[in-house]
């Protein structure tokens, strides 16, 4: 028994700190979710102080469940996270395999590729939505305008002019509508996190068994079948880790949503909580508890998947 004391003592600070971090604010959130608590109310000023006398029971939960935004926010959260996961894993795999061999300037290619991962999410969002995707001032708008000008110019030519006069004038896509701004978020987060997937996959590829590959090659296996039959299975574990770490980060995606969407209806669960927090703390807290439950369901599922192999 005595020899267990020391390891426990060494873990104690970390465990206690995280326990407090989880329990204290979460306990308060739980309490607020059962009472009527708003920041401003002229009609019912007594609701502006958190007190047990304003007990509302499950009223806040009922209110949130009936809010139409709630189910949309959950769907949208899942849509955004899963899309990002698919894109980053696929692009990450392809790029990692591509840069896994030596070629002139590989070091520079690697530096360029991983750079987006260091960019602040807020800067990422500001940069993409304004300077790249804006339909008028951004490169998106300028590129489409350029193509239109080109087509108009080509119409002047004999023969091919006929052909180009049938081309429609293109309109740049706006990424500020509720659906398209979800695409914008997926795009910018994929840009930022693909390098992370590349980093992890690259490290794993370096440990791949080359002799197996050579044997496969001698047997006449194509590059593609080697990739599918040898490389992808070898990367199963890193893929699981990339999926897990990213889920952890993207479930609480906030800055990107806030900057890109700005009240156009593209919201995820954290953003919905943020909206409620501007006045209705009770509803915000109830939504928060739902978000915690959702996160835990996903956590159990994902962490079991990775955790199983973690200990062997």
């Amino acid at each position, binding site marked *: 028994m005595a020899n267990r004391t020391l390891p426990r003592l060494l873990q104690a600070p970390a465990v206690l700190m995280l326990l407090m971090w989880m329990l204290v604010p979460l306990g308060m959130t739980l309490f607020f979710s059962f009472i009527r608590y708003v920041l401003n109310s002229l009609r019912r000023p007594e609701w502006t102080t958190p007190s047990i006398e304003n007990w509302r029971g499950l009223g806040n939960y009922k209110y949130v469940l009936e809010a139409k935004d709630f189910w949309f926010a959950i769907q949208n959260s899942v849509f955004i996270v899963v899309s990002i996961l698919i894109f980053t894993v696929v692009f990450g795999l392809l790029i990692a395999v591509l840069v896994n061999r030596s070629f002139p300037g590989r070091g520079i290619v690697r530096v360029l590729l991983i750079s987006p991962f260091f960019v602040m999410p807020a800067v990422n969002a500001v940069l993409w939505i304004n300077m790249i995707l804006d339909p008028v001032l951004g490169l998106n708008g300028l590129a489409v305008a350029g193509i239109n000008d080109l087509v108009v110019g080509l119409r002047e030519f004999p023969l091919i002019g006929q052909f180009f006069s049938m081309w429609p004038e293109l309109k740049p896509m706006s990424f500020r509508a509720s659906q398209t701004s979800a695409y914008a978020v997926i795009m910018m987060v994929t840009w930022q996190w693909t390098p992370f997937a590349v980093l992890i996959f690259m490290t794993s590829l370096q440990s791949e068994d080359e002799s197996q590959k050579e044997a496969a090659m001698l047997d006449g296996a194509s590059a593609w079948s080697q990739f599918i039959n040898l490389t992808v299975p070898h990367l199963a574990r890193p893929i699981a880790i990339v999926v897990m770490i990213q889920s952890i980060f993207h479930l609480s995606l906030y*800055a990107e949503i806030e900057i890109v969407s700005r009240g156009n209806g593209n919201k995820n669960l954290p953003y919905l*909580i943020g909206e409620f927090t501007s006045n209705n703390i009770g509803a915000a807290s109830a939504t928060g508890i739902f978000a915690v439950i959702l996160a835990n369901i996903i956590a159990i599922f994902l962490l079991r998947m990775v955790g199983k192999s973690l200990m062997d």
Partner: protein
Amino acid sequence: MAAVAQTTPLSRVLWPTLAWIIALIFFFPIFWLVFTSFKTDADAVKPEHLLFFTPTLENYANMTENYDYWRFAINSVITSTFATGFALVVGVPAAYAMAFDPSRHTKDILVWMLSTKMLPAAAVLYPMTFLTKNMLGLFDTHFLIIVVLCLINLPIVIWMLFTYFKEIPKDIIEAGKMDGVSTWGEIKDILIPLAWGGIASTALLTFIFCWNEAYWTVRLTTIDAATLSKLIEGNRAPEGLFFGRLSAVSTAAVGPIVVLGWFCQKQLVQGLTFGAVK
């Protein structure tokens, strides 16, 4: 795949070219950000000045004069450094105990720690503001930001360190025990030198996450402890017409961390495994 590709001359050119193109596409937005930061606000939105313009440092001058850039930058350095250091001080002993003295519950503890990272920050924003502002009086202090940054990164730190430590043969640590080395001595003289690469990668990644954190640093500060995320937050609102200014502020905010990342990329390429390599 590598071996096959190298057999034909075409693919010897094709694949590296493709890699270069993809790398340039990925880097382009960062290049564009820096590029735009040298344009005036007026030039930045004029198509005729898209590529050709008279470069100016006006935006940077404006930023240091009117926005007090250096105070935000120093706050970022202070909070990120201390939070990273603090997380390692708490994380190394914990990961050491978990890796070399695991109990039945070690896996559950690790999984639980990671699950705390999944809790949406927004869910506890109001209680945190309430606590730090009304009850503890810690709102907008370096101490608070350091503690929060440390706490939100601690699960990742412990997990990464755990996966590195597990690769170290247990015998080496046991041998130290036999020789009567103290626990502190084991950590300091055996573990840290052996796992140095892993610890450095962990520190680096944690520092990056701290520097880029933009939820708590924005919402739990006003002036005193405000970091570069807060500077971005304050400058992003007037969208559209101020691309030049916005780019300069953004470049100055991400520049230090991107350059740090470049210098340490070897460390990251070799070290960022999260236990993925067996």
